[in-house]
């Protein structure tokens, strides 16, 4: 394959990684029945904190840990408000989005546009030598490899383990989960915080790797909303979510490339709109009867897998409260 093309794909994978991590985090949270709507602000604040912590300590690892703590703490506020104080999760999330974004601008004002530590590429021996796929997927940073592990790990957890059944059940029908011995609200806390910590990690992935440094206005502003949309597009299924994130990053790369080509004249607004239009079309397709018809012609073993993969219903108890007796 053309080395230039390989380079493009390599950077798409790299650029998509924060989106992948953030939307995997949100998938975990929402599977447990909680909505963390604060993603956009969470990403910005944790990116800022991650960068500053890394800059001050001189260690990217410490930056990552700090960012994850910030993401986890924001999620904790959502969990306390939504579960303990029985407030509306969407309202809390929305307020937190605005609050954390402003907080980041305010607290980070002395650290803008300075160089700091970065996470560097570390190609995986042997794997990186596989033709085509090697240089695309395995000549990346450790964070990218971690995102691969998260994708497969979450799939395995959700669909192949007992605690995964409990995780899905608390988001689908908490009464049933309770009857089968789950401590619904404690699990919801746990998964909300884990999800939030991953969003924090995604923030650090921006400021320590993809768009190194800190600036105002923050360069990742808006990506939190995109991650939220990707979770819906992905039908709360890790593989589809990842597909959505890569697709989005790919379209973005394409639109940047087209803008740089003077021969093609398309309005920027139009280009930026394409991913959203595609997303809506896909959602319509998936939720229409077309899929069920497609399923009937597939061989049986494939049917089950496909249905699972294409499922587009949100967790039935998403955003609801559960009163434990």
């Amino acid at each position, binding site marked *: 394959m053309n080395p230039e093309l390989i380079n493009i794909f390599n950077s798409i994978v790299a650029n998509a990684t924060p989106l992948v991590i953030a939307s995997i985090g949100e998938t975990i949270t929402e599977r447990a029945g909680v909505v963390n709507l604060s993603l956009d602000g969470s990403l910005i604040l944790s990116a800022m904190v991650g960068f500053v912590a890394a800059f001050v300590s001189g260690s990217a690892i410490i930056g990552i840990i700090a960012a994850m703590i910030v993401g986890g703490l924001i999620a904790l506020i959502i969990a306390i408000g939504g579960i303990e104080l029985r407030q509306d999760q969407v309202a809390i999330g929305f307020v937190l989005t605005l609050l954390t974004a402003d907080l980041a601008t305010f607290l980070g004002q002395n650290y803008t546009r300075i160089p700091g530590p970065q996470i560097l590429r570390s190609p995986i021996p042997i794997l990186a030598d596989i033709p085509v796929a090697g240089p695309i997927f395995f000549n990346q940073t450790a964070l990218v490899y971690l995102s691969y592990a998260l994708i497969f790990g979450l799939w395995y957890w959700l669909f*192949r*383990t*007992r605690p995964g059944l409990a995780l899905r059940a608390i988001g689908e029908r908490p009464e*049933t989960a309770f*009857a089968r*011995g789950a401590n619904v609200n404690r699990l919801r806390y746990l998964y909300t915080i884990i999800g939030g910590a991953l969003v924090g990690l995604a923030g650090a992935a921006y400021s320590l790797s993809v768009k190194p440094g800190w600036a105002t206005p923050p360069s990742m502003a808006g990506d939190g909303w995109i991650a939220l949309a990707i979770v819906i597009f992905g039908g709360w299924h890790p593989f589809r979510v990842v597909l959505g994130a890569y697709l989005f990053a790919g379209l973005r790369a394409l639109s940047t490339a087209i803008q740089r080509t003077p021969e093609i004249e398309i309005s920027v607004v139009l280009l930026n709109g394409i991913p959203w239009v595609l997303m809506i079309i896909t959602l319509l397709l998936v939720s229409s009867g077309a899929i069920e018809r497609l399923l009937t012609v597939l061989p049986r073993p494939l049917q089950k897998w496909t*249905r699972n993969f294409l*499922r587009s219903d949100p*967790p039935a108890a998403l955003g609801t409260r559960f009163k434990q007796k």
Partner: protein
Amino acid sequence: MGLVMNIELKHIHKRFGAVHANNDINLTFATGRIVGILGENGAGKSTLMKILSGFQSMDSGEIWLDGKPVSYNGPQAAIAHGIGMLQQDPLDVGAFTVLENFIYGQPGNLSPKRKVAQQQLEKLSQRFGFELDPDMPVSQLSIGQRQQLEIVRLLALGVRTLILDEPTTGISTEQKTLLFDALRELAAKDSMTVLLVSHKLEDVIALCHEVAVLRAGRIVGSMDMPATTTELVTLMFGQELAAQPRQPINANSDDAVLALHKVQLRNKRMKIDNISLRVRAGEIIGLAGLDGSGQEMLLRACVGLEKCSRGQIDIAGRDMTGKSYREFLQTGVAFGAAGRLEEGLVAGLTLTEHIALVTSHQSFIDWNSARQHTEDQIKHYNVRGRPESRIETLSGGNQQRVLMALMPQEPVLMALEQPTRGLDVDSARWIWQQLIERRKGGTAIIFSSPDLDELVTYSDRIIVFCGGWVQEVADMENLTLDELGRMIGGEGVIQ
């Protein structure tokens, strides 16, 4: 197997605010017995069963198993002690497959062995003739199949006592036969104890070895079977209930309140063609058929909740084809859905709020008069509840009474889905008295019911739905239950 288990309940008390739902209950259940738990609506049956199965805590009292007192905090712990309960609406997860649902809740290490679990599921299903596809999403199963799944799941967890709360509402006749055979076998061969809460006395008579009767939170009697319906009714209500005389309709005009002309109805699963029907003022029309044979679709079409794909619907002489539910309501029709809490009533709202919703037409509600009105309605309809009670805390029978209170006073036509679902014999009669009162005023009633007895007792005419066909019973005078049962099953259908 011979795993014995004796259950003793001692001095069990449970209050909900002012309601003493269980008042000093003492009961013993012996191993290998099928025991019927009877009682009027709101008597406290479900509460007691939920306490025994860990779904609800008790205020005071003790549960003894095999001579030892036990205490547990939750259903999972009760199952570990060998007691499992099948809720009326089976507690499962719709998004799971049958197999996942079977596995979820079983103890074991991180990653369950799906093959082993599948074999266990198939073996248990085979034993009782249940047909459960392990890969099918639970949301696509019928209530009867979800029950079967829950039973094999509980058996796999090793329960020795099985509690069933009104298991026969909403399942087909074949599923009921399968269920009863399974319960008999479990009691006889595995010495399991089975506790059955039911309002259907014929089911109790067919299945149980003994019965215990609750009234207003207390045990008021028990009896070894066999017993007749009359004996059971006397035990439950303290008196025999007089048979209700049937009154002929006094249709003084021949005008149709409701007329269907060659209506075609269709949904994803079926199509029914050519339904023609004229209903006169004061007539009661019963719709018979297995669950989901189209009765509900027709009822909904009569009030504009379902669109006819062909044909014409007239209400009181006006062509209403294609009109909205709202427009139908304005012509004076009323609709009562079978899923009370899903469609008819709003969980979370109080009785006063419900009444205010239907009576108040201004944007601002006069809460004082609404409350007053609610108190009147509570008295008139004999509802066990207070104006500020939230609807979901009422027992099933009382919810149904509220639903009646919400109906307009003199509708032209009432379309009712299973108007007495889940009601005790006395409440069911009471509901019918109310309905018959209204028919005297000229209201026509069209209703569906899975209860053949109810259909034959109250209908002037019966329409049978079967496999996409509808047919009116020709000879109402000499119709027997058996005959009607056979017609529902598809015999004697003219095609």
